């Protein structure tokens, strides 16, 4: 399953890049699964970015979702901190 990942704000800074393409195994079915997989397979930056799940938010194909949401069939997943606009 080919996925485009986007990172913003301090998630982007800790990982060291704003986007990447990944191909997770089929057992990775939710955003939370994806975060676990990234944190354990992609190195220290990803692990540091995802250490505090309470401060992590997500969008699947540009729709804001809880971390429990499915990523089956998704093309783009974004991971970022709580928003602070306005």
């Amino acid at each position, binding site marked *: 399953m080919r996925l485009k990942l*986007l990172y*913003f*704000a*301090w998630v982007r800074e800790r990982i060291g890049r704003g986007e990447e393409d990944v191909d997770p195994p089929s057992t990775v079915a939710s955003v939370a699964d994806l975060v676990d997989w990234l944190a354990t397979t992609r190195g220290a930056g990803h692990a540091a970015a995802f250490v505090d799940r309470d401060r992590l938010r997500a*969008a699947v194909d*540009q729709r*804001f979702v809880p971390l429990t949401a499915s990523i089956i069939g998704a093309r783009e997943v*974004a991971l*970022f*901190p*709580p*928003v*602070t*606009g*306005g």
Partner: protein
Amino acid sequence: MIRIIVDPAPIDVGAEMLMAEGGGSGAVATFTGLVRRDDGVSTLELEHYPGATEAALHDVARGAVDRWQLSAATIVHRVGIMHPGERIVFVAAAAPHRAAALEACAYLIDRLKTDAPFWKRETRGDRPAWVEPRVTDDVAAARWDDGAG
């Protein structure tokens, strides 16, 4: 009419006001957010999620138009690097009467703070720091959820 702008260029409030007033409504309420001068911030940087930001702002504006029967809803949000005193955000709501315009204006700014993917980073001296979300923003946005607005 819904007008959504996300851009690094300075916000031209006069031009936006004229457009909001152009729909023939009896009332236009606006809010302007500025970079604060008083707490030692030298620069403020706004990061966003291109595409998703505009879609989220459009949803916020659509919610206000439907709820208050607005003739116009405008959200202009600056991104990139800003300095104290500069405008970060401008919203406008045009309605037949003032109560609807004022309420819709508050709704637009309350909801955009929690519903749109922007991230602020402040620099004090030479130290940049990401701004933490405020519980009061969540409370302000949630007051519109129960239909009591």
